[in-house]
């Protein structure tokens, strides 16, 4: 066992897959000699050569499109967005070309697009985005979003092995903030499509993912201590396809749901989850499904503003307390 950071776990996962399967290669801006803006691919070019760790021009649509072409030919590209905010420049390519390829034309397109997302780091409106909702609406694409060190590794490995295109979202606030003991030598693979109960509870369920998993766990601990409210926390891990079974099962257990996400409220993924719960477990609800999310504004830069706009542990505590009393 060795204690590793989230970033290191991701790095290990990539490294192991590159070693295991020579079809895997990496492309993106500054991923080669520099090792990526956040150093996720540090040392990769040296080890695997520049032909498997390719520095590209600043061309997100070309990065994603070229990954698709290579994937059709049997390779397994991992495309890095320097910040996930720039995936917007490849929106057409990813949603129209890549995601539909199997359905419309029987084309295999096993590829991963990954990049740092999320706020709480004073990145301002264009280095803090949460793009999941923009891609939730894309049949053919999978979206994974690890929140733990183990899943950072397990999901990158599973994503690379998946036969369909996967958008792997890595929250930069987690990169160096969380650490975990990981077994060495053991193959860590997190199944895509399966949520995980991060904390068992009885009175209320929080459904969340990414950075807000940690804020939700903090809130849960506080509620337990201060209010004696037992909160179950579900870490979604995969956002597309959603794990309906896990969602429904926690709802049926606690009968109250708080969905927490960092993304803005309107059009965020919580809506979809709320609709599904409503359809599949309406009779089990003892209160309205409530949301704790960011405010509906572009994410501002100043700490005071960012902290106000994004959901915080206290917000979750207050919201859960309210709901538990409903």
């Amino acid at each position, binding site marked *: 066992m060795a204690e590793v950071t989230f970033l290191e776990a991701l790095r290990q996962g990539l490294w192991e897959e590159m070693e295991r399967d020579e079809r895997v290669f990496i492309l993106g801006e500054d991923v080669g000699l520099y090792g990526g803006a956040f150093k996720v691919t540090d040392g990769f070019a040296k080890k695997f050569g520049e032909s498997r760790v*390719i520095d590209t021009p600043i*061309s*997100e649509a070309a*990065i994603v*499109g070229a990954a698709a072409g290579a994937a059709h030919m049997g390779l397994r*590209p991992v495309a890095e967005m320097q910040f996930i905010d720039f995936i917007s420049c490849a929106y057409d390519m990813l949603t129209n070309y890549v995601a539909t390829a199997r*359905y419309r*034309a029987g*084309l295999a397109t096993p590829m991963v697009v990954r990049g740092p997302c999320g706020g709480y780091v004073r990145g301002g409106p264009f280095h803090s985005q949460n793009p999941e909702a923009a891609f939730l609406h894309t049949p053919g694409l999978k979206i994974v979003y690890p929140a733990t060190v183990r899943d950072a590794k397990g999901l990158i490995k599973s994503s690379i092995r998946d036969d369909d295109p996967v958008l792997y979202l890595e929250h930069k606030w987690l990169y160096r903030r969380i650490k975990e003991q990981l077994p060495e030598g053991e193959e860590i693979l997190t199944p895509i499509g399966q949520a995980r109960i991060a904390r068992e509870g009885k009175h209320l369920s929080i459904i969340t993912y990414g950075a807000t998993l940690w804020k939700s766990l903090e809130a849960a601990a506080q509620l337990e201590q201060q209010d004696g409210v037992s909160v179950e926390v579900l870490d979604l891990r995969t956002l597309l396809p959603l794990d309906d079974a896990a969602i429904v099962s926690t709802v049926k257990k606690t009968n109250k749901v708080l969905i927490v996400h960092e993304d803005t409220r309107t059009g965020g993924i919580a809506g979809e989850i709320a609709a599904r719960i409503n359809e599949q477990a309406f009779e089990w609800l003892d209160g309205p499904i409530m949301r704790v999310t960011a405010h509906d504004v572009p994410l501002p830069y100043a700490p005071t503003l960012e902290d106000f706009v994004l959901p915080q542990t206290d917000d979750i505590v207050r919201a859960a307390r309210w709901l538990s009393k409903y």
Partner: protein
Amino acid sequence: MALPATRPTGAFPSGAAGAALSTDQLLEIYYYLRLTRTLEERLVALYRQTKVIGGLFRSLGQEGESVASAYALERGRNKDILSPLIRNLGSMLVMGAQPIEILRQYMAKADSPTRGRELNVHFNDLEKGYLGQISHLGDMIPVMAGIALSFKMRGQPRVGLVYIGDGGTSTGTFHEGLNLAAVQRLPMVVVGEYNHWAYSTPPEKQFAVKDLADKAKGYGIPAVTVDGNDVFAVYEATKFALDRARRGKGVHFIEVKTYRRKGHAEHDDQHYVPKDVLDLWSKSNDPMDRYTQRILAADLVEQKELKEIDDRVRVAVDQATDACVNEPLPAAESALPDVYVDPPAAEKLWFKAL
């Protein structure tokens, strides 16, 4: 070889590659030209009978560049890969797409290559070496760059050929993909089709350079402008570009000057195109006419042989049509599988089961 920028007139440049083609090959090219034209005429008939489901796109006047450029490729399993546009029916046929596949696609038949999911020539056979486009213009350039990248990474002597219209060169994806391919010196050939129109938009509203080939200068890749209605010139230029790319010399851009002789799609009466210009192109600069005259004049083939091909094509198209025209459309629920490998099918929605 520095091919001169030939003007689209009726004159035949005396290329060297023509001589290198055997009689069989010359006849085969003729076959594909004829097949393209006859098949499209059949599609027009089916369109008028409302058997074609969506729009119909013609390549009339552009069959020469399509067939000739594709014919220069190495074809077959694990050989070159080509990505056609809507007006490259001829290219697809050369690569081995079957007339019945085209007919079924347009009519959205259950047994069409995409099982009724996609339209017209938007389908693939990577074994045969073609990759269908999506509608979004420009997107196939980065995708083909990725295919060419795979050739380079694996050290395979294969080349990717991708078409782009004069209008399509204005897209951001064209720029990004071509630049990436140029920097990586990928084995890729881009055929830019200067057919004088992008829907109703003429070149002078699309870009401020004279030739598409001028655009190549911004990517550090060589370019050539050829008479797109001269089958030999296009074949020769493509061969050269492919050989060069295959030898690891990187991307090559070929501009073919041609003319879109039909509207953007069958519904478009192209009232914005001067009648006399159209006439000129059809009367004195039809690629098939020019090709036929040339191979006949040079005594490379006999009129009789061409006639035989015409008949053969007619029969083949008739048979293909008869074989599929009454085929069923796909079953409704066949819409659900294969969004992903896993899960194998999209969920059938609750209200369908009520």
